């Protein structure tokens, strides 16, 4: 039998269904890969028993002649931002170290109901705040990719879903969950040569997902190709009464609807995304993407999104403001860590607990959020940012009069080395320049691999779609995938 860990979700699902291999064989193979890849630090907790239990169930169902569930026996990785019953859930923070939820997040429950098993909880930026996976309390995730310069500098797998992206590109898991607040699915996908989609805000329930910025947070899948993303998203999405912003809509059959034929589609190229200092290789890849979509039958039109430059500053008001409010719940009383200095009163305990439990980036964002919401500054910062957000959403609505989808680069650079940007928070924030606008507008967007730069590192292309048009986004992603022929993978050094 060939190595099943080279297979994606669709191939594993189909192979288990047809009996080409058993779910147990699949689970065993991935468990070995996971436990041998400690150097990447992609997992905070490994849960082989969870994957094996799902495998046993799939094999038993097949032996009994039952119709198998959509993901029966497919083992996946779970970003450690999703509450998993009885399994430590930390958001990569010291604050939640040892926290074992007594309930399951809706998205993870849906995946288990679909027959998937869990290989472990994946590392991330602390509370999903970061673009490089350098803010985790449990250490940096190392990208499996290396530059071709022989220097072997450890590279960032992107963030915040960096454990997910590293594990998928290293073939430790065929797919994983991610969450995206300002680009946390798409940028890590681009950095590691995989695919990932952030669906329309409200498609996936936020219930049981550790909150960062609630008006932006959205779960989505990451996998090695577009079809696998479609399969995963079908299992993850759907109405949930426990999330007040969940959309009460049927889940489309995205996998069945996949088609790389883009005849009749208009693809907009937003001119404001040509930012100063963008590497020529990104520019060239973007042009290549335009040519691929033309080849798939699409018509290309130039469009304008005039408020693009204000998206990042608006985001860095809105996201920290919501975070400062959401993270007020960590008080050392109900769950998580408690710091109780000698003689401390209740207020001292709160302050000491939060100083010890939150890392520097999380504290920085809570302070910014607290400041912009404080008396006297609220209108100048927060209300103004929410007004600019309206203008950004309006830019997209106007663009949809002229086109069906947008094509842009996913990130302004290939993966950078760990430590390269961590000293300058602003430089790190600027990495999200292409992903943040669609987050602010709540619309679906996906990254697919387009090619390699001259250092041999993956570059991603982003497709942005109208609200609820995940199908259009996936189809354009598929059209690019079919033409890019991206087969590069990191050479195993771990």
């Amino acid at each position, binding site marked *: 039998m060939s190595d099943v860990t080279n297979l994606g979700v669709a191939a594993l699902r189909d192979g288990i269904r047809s009996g080409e291999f058993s779910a147990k064989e699949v689970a065993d193979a991935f468990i070995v890969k996971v436990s041998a890849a400690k150097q990447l630090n992609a997992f905070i907790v490994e849960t082989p028993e969870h994957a094996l239990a799902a495998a046993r169930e799939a094999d038993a169902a097949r032996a009994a002649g039952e119709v198998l569930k959509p993901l029966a026996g497919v083992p996946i990785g779970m970003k450690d931002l999703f509450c998993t019953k009885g399994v430590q859930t930390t958001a990569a923070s010291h604050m939640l170290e040892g926290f*074992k939820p*007594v*309930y399951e997040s809706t998205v993870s429950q849906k995946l288990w109901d679909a027959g998937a098993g869990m290989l472990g909880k994946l590392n991330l930026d602390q509370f999903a705040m970061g673009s490089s996976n350098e803010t985790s309390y449990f250490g940096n995730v190392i990208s499996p990719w290396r530059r071709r310069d022989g220097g072997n500098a450890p590279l960032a797998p992107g963030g915040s879903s960096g454990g997910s992206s590293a594990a998928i590109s290293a073939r430790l898991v065929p797919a994983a969950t991610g969450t995206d607040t300002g680009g946390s699915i798409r940028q890590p996908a681009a950095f590691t040569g995989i695919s990932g989609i952030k669906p*329309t*805000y*409200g498609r996936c329930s936020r219930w049981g997902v550790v909150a960062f910025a609630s*008006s932006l947070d959205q779960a989505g899948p990451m996998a090695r190709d577009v079809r696998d993303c479609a399969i995963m998203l079908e299992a993850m999405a759907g109405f949930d*009464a426990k999330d*007040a*912003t969940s*959309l*009460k809509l049927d889940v489309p059959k995205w996998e069945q609807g996949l088609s790389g034929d883009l005849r009749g589609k208009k693809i907009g190229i937003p001119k404001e995304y040509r930012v100063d200092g963008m590497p020529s290789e990104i520019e060239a890849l973007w042009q290549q993407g335009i040519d691929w979509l033309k080849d798939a039958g699409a018509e290309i039109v130039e469009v304008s999104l005039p408020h693009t430059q*204000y998206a990042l*500053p*608006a985001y*860095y*008001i809105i996201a920290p403001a919501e975070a*400062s409010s959401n993270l*007020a719940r960590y*008080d*050392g*009383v*109900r*769950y*998580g860590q*408690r710091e*109780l200095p000698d003689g*401390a*009163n*209740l207020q*001292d*305990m709160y*302050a*000491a607990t*939060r*100083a010890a439990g939150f890392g520097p980036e999380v504290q*920085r964002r*809570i*302070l*910014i959020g*607290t*400041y912009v919401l*404080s008396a006297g*500054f609220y209108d*100048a*910062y927060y209300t*103004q*940012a*929410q*007004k*600019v*957000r*309206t*203008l950004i*959403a309006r830019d997209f609505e106007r663009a949809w009069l002229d086109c069906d989808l947008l094509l842009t680069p996913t990130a302004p650079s290939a993966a950078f080395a760990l430590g390269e940007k961590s000293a300058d*928070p*602003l430089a790190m924030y600027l990495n999200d320049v292409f992903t943040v606008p669609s987050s602010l*507008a*709540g619309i679906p967007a996906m990254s697919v691999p387009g090619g390699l730069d001259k250092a041999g590192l993956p570059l991603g292309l982003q497709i942005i779609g109208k*609200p609820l048009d995940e199908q259009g986004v996936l189809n354009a992603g598929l059209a690019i995938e079919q033409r890019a022929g991206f087969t590069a993978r990191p050479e195993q050094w771990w």
Partner: protein
Amino acid sequence: MSVDTATVKKVASLARIAISDGDAERLVPELNNILGWIEQLGEVDTSSVQPMTAVIPNTLRLRDDVVNDGDMRDDVLANAPAGEHGFFTVPKVIE
């Protein structure tokens, strides 16, 4: 607008995060760098714009006014750093 050490300390106190004088001094330029950058939003004319309230039009749903949750005291307390007799415990609040 920019912050000074006293403002950083006040904000940290509002956020219930204990910081040392050294932390406060270190944070002043860091936060000013970020605040200076987000200041550019002031250039945008928003005089005729409503602030965003929901990205996707959605109405708040009503459900039947019935108890559909509860009776899980031990679960609620399961992750508490300290608890006694079915309650969360905290340092003495009233002298």
